């Protein structure tokens, strides 16, 4: 149901612009997928034939596999940190009114807007010179957690705004202490917001490259870094296509799920249907 009925001419041009934008975005992505089955090593067009050879090579490539596991580990750890800290931050900022509250809120959200190259450089400097840390898997995790927190924080804050504070007051009124209230009332009502925030955070971390580049040691390779390093090796190019296609799936699925969850949650909470 259109909310506003547009004049026919405008409607046609809006449709055309939308289609062009979608084509520009998704045709290259489809090309990557297609080329991962292309028999021609140099991706000649049209493809002379199709093969699953590259996929089996990619599957057996140790470098690609290691990189995949590294990425999964980093993303899981960063998401775990983000879930705990993001939730606590949202709860803290909700309960208290203090001077500079908005500033703190902004500072928490800012990392997602900061240019990755600046964040990466800053972390590298911070870890190595000030803290005297060796770059490792954990330095990547910490760096990723800074922007993963934002997705959790935003989701939880939005949920709190919609719920209001009466449920927790009701719980305390009925005799539950703060921890019981959190366990039986707050957490269950945040569940879908946490899941959505966590999935988004996983997706963000999984395909991050700029910050990772600066905070990873030379031996820790996440999947995006592995792709970047192998991109210009002529022999590896077809495998890169396969890995890239896999990476797209890994990033898209959590975000798709997150979106569905937020939608469902909104419905369940308002009691629509």
């Amino acid at each position, binding site marked *: 149901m259109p909310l506003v009925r547009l004049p026919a001419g405008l409607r046609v041009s809006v449709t055309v612009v939308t289609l062009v934008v979608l084509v520009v975005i998704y045709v290259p992505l489809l090309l990557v997928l297609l080329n991962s089955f292309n028999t021609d090593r140099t991706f000649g067009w049209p493809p002379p034939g199709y093969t699953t050879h590259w996929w089996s090579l990619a599957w057996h490539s140790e470098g690609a596999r290691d990189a995949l596991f590294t990425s999964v580990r980093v993303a899981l750890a960063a998401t775990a940190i983000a879930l705990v800290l993001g939730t606590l931050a949202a709860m803290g900022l909700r309960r208290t009114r203090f001077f500079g509250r908005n500033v703190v809120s902004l500072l928490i959200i800012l990392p997602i807007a900061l240019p990755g190259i600046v964040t990466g450089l800053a972390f590298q400097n911070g870890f190595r010179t000030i803290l005297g840390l060796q770059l490792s898997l954990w330095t990547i995790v910490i760096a990723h957690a800074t922007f993963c927190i934002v997705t959790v924080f935003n989701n939880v804050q939005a949920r709190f705004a919609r719920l209001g504070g009466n449920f927790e007051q*009701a719980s305390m009124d009925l005799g*539950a202490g703060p921890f019981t209230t959190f366990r039986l009332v707050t957490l269950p009502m945040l569940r879908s917001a946490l899941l959505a925030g966590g999935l988004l955070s996983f997706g963000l971390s999984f395909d991050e490259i700029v910050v990772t580049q600066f905070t990873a040691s030379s031996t820790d390779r996440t999947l995006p870094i592995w792709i970047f390093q192998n991109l210009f090796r002529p022999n590896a190019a077809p495998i890169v296509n396969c890995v890239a296609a896999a990476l797209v799936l890994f990033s898209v699925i959590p975000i798709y799920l997150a979106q569905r969850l937020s939608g469902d949650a909104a419905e369940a909470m308002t009691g629509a249907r």
Partner: protein
Amino acid sequence: MVGAGSPAISVRGLSKHYDQVRAVHGLDLDIEDGEFFSMLGPSGSGKTTVLRLIAGFEPPTAGTIRLGDEDVTDRAPYDRDVNTVFQDYAIFPHMSVLQNVEYGLRVKRVAKPERRRRAEEALATVRLEGYAARRPHQLSGGQRQRVALARALVNRPKVLLLDEPLGALDLKLRREMQVELKEIQREVGITFVFVTHDQEEALTMSDRIAVFNDGRIQQLATPVELYEQPASAFVAGFVGTSNLLDGQVAKELVGEDGTFVIRPEKLVMHAEDGAPAADGNTAVAPGVVREVVYLGASTHSVVELDAGATLTVAHQNTDRSIDAALERRQQRVVLSWRRDHLVALGRAPDPETPSPEEES
């Protein structure tokens, strides 16, 4: 049960200030055990703040709150033997009706069979048998209201606090629930403290009513006293329609200085030629009918007296004279009333609550 000498709630010198705003100021209040007590007032008068202070959601700026024999001023909400029915009900959306009602017993670690039994009992009390498995979003507004009530009652608190619980219901349902709430209160024998801005609701249900304005109690009395003997112009105006006679008008019509109030149903309207003569018992005043409002059961006529005041006259529509009343618009009439129906206000609003012995 606590004896008559020990009130269920005893509040002394209670104040709550937010920055510059004095929401509640120097409140003294005793609520008797088993009483249906209403706090009535316009929004912002401090009545809800008093309720929240008693529940423990906010700390008072000054003063003490006692529940029975215990000083609970500094206790957390979960450490007070009171339960609240919230204005928006605050029913947990992720739990079934039964789980909601059981919640208080569950967190107090009451054994499952007993809490199931008591929850079902509470649901029966609010006439919601058979709804235990429902989800909150499957319930109507009135049913949610009952769930909230059952969830509070199941804990058998010393005092039940109700924060405008009927405000979200439509008029017909609200009237039904008023009667039902009163019945439930009599049945369970728990002290109810009921916050409302609806004077009719307060008059219908309460044993006693405290009228709030500007963070203070303007008058604390039974519904009858409140209506028949309002202590101030504010109370007279807030509880029912008030007709004020003051200044020069009072002098001319009553023969004394001061402010007087008379209720609309105590005025009688006569045609100009059929008016009784004024005597020791009866006062009369001529005027012009400015407006006639037909209200179904009664008709209200607004009469501008020659002496200066504007009075509302209520007339029960017991016969077929409504047309006649409507035709009186802009006509000259004479009002009469019994002199002893006039209530002298005069004195300032009395901040002191009547001593408990006067009650019950």
